[in-house]
């Protein structure tokens, strides 16, 4: 019974998705909206893929991956509504169980210390008033986005493709804050810590470090606003590091401590976790051992079809507009190719407005489906330095770096 109800809910959301695709720009009905009122769970395309659809504070109904630490996935339909992911739909991923549920932004401070000449302690308001404001649009994507689609399956947070979002960030340049504190000559790395903490002393605190060159690069921000509003608490209110082009593991939330180090950080989350095979592919074979690892860093190129869902029925006999998004690790999207026949023939998609090299880039393409036919829809993005998506999925035991060309199967009726 339950299974049937779930299936019905998913089918219903598929129909809603299709309608929106056909109307092109109509309002998408999400979980929590009328079109999905019956759905309390959604079934992601993986074993044990049932996810409750639930509202968390400052959030619309999202897919609950885990309730502690809170991990919420954005339904793919959201990405068809616009190039910017709304704050209340933005995915959530915490690492540790001890996340403050109350933050007083007036008393919150960020401390800059370590190998600096003048340690600083600043409130969000001081940051916002004492440094030049900088704004940019950037994709924040979990390193393990799409981990649940790995085959063979790997342990870890079992995301489908919704552990990503694109927001307009406003903040101050990290390097200006570091310069105000004054770096000592022996500084080599900068370590970031947030108010999220472990529940026992032996549990490693969540901290991430960047090499000094990266920390001092133009676009790394301490953000205090997201899409023109303060960050939702679950996205790191009141301050979050923004490292455009790099995976979200570096985008430390509730950022309250910046420590300048004179050595390579040996703490757990930088030195031992979030590491990928040190080869061009970032992959290995299941069971392969003793492969050298390096910290994960820049995102690879990806694209998604957002206007039609896998398994949808599409109207035959007239042109169907297909649209989606593409992004990369900060070089910018140059081309998106679209295929309606499983990759035998490709056509150039039209790119939407350019919101900057770190942003989602919308694209559109069209084809004319014939009644009774099935179609495998593919999108392939290429960035400005010629990197493109893979046709065969890479595998690694941590479920990082997926960027295979995804297939959306539809049938025309």
């Amino acid at each position: 019974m339950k299974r049937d109800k779930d299936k019905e809910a998913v089918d219903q959301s598929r129909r809603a998705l299709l309608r929106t695709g056909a109307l092109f720009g109509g309002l998408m009905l999400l979980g929590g909206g009328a079109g999905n009122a019956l759905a309390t769970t959604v079934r992601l395309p993986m074993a044990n893929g049932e996810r409750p659809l639930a509202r968390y504070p400052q959030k619309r109904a999202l897919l609950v991956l885990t309730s502690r630490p809170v991990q919420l996935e954005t339904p793919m339909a959201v990405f068809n509504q616009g190039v910017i992911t709304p704050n209340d739909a933005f995915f959530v991923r915490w690492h540790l169980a001890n996340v403050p549920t109350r933050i007083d932004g007036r008393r919150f401070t960020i401390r800059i210390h370590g190998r600096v000449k003048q340690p600083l302690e600043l409130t969000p308001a001081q940051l916002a008033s004492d440094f030049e404001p900088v704004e940019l649009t950037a994709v924040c994507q979990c390193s393990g986005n799409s981990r649940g689609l790995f085959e063979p399956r790997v342990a870890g947070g079992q995301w489908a493709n919704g552990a990503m979002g694109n927001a307009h960030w406003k903040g101050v340049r990290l390097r200006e804050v570091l310069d105000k504190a004054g770096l000592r000559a022996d500084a080599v790395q900068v370590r970031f810590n947030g108010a999220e903490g472990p529940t026992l002393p032996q549990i490693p605190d969540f901290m991430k470090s960047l090499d000094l060159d990266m920390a001092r690069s133009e676009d790394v921000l301490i953000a205090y606003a997201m899409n023109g509003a303060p960050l939702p608490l679950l996205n790191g209110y009141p301050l979050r590091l923004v490292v455009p082009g790099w995976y979200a593991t570096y985008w430390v939330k509730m950022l309250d401590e910046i420590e300048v180090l004179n050595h390579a950080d040996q703490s757990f989350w930088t030195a031992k976790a979030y590491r990928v095979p040190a080869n061009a592919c970032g992959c290995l074979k299941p069971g392969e051992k003793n492969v050298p690892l390096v910290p994960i860093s820049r995102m690879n190129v990806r694209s998604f079809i957002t206007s039609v869902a896998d398994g949808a029925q599409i109207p035959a006999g007239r042109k169907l507009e297909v649209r989606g998004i593409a992004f990369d690790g900060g070089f910018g999207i140059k081309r998106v190719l679209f295929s309606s026949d499983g990759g035998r023939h490709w056509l150039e998609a039209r790119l939407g407005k350019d919101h900057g090299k770190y942003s989602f880039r919308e694209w559109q393409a069209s084809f004319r489906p014939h009644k009774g036919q099935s179609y495998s829809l593919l999108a392939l993005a290429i960035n400005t330095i010629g990197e493109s998506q893979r046709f065969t999925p890479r595998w690694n035991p941590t479920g990082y770096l997926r960027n295979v060309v995804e297939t959306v199967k539809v049938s025309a009726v």
Partner: protein
Amino acid sequence: MQHIGNRLGYRLASSIGCVFLALPIPAFALAFGAVTVKLPPAAELPGQPPSVAQACGICHSGDYITTQPPLTQQQWKSVATTMVNRYGCPISTQDIPIITKWLVKVNGKNR
């Protein structure tokens, strides 16, 4: 957006004073308020967890276990060992087989 802003307590800083109120409000004139959230309850540990499994709940809810793919006995043992050796789970290594047996029962895969 305005609604969200108000709810979050993002509002004019009292420090800007009357002098500036007639001017267009610059972005930095926004202040940061107190935000309190109440989270929905954590999902319970699945099945009939042995008493030592209460240690799992110190760091994560039961859905972290039930959303994993079904894993073999060897894979679950490896996960439990990782939790102890890497993530500081406060159980004795002697308890790993007990935890593993329970995990296989609630979400195991026969190879």
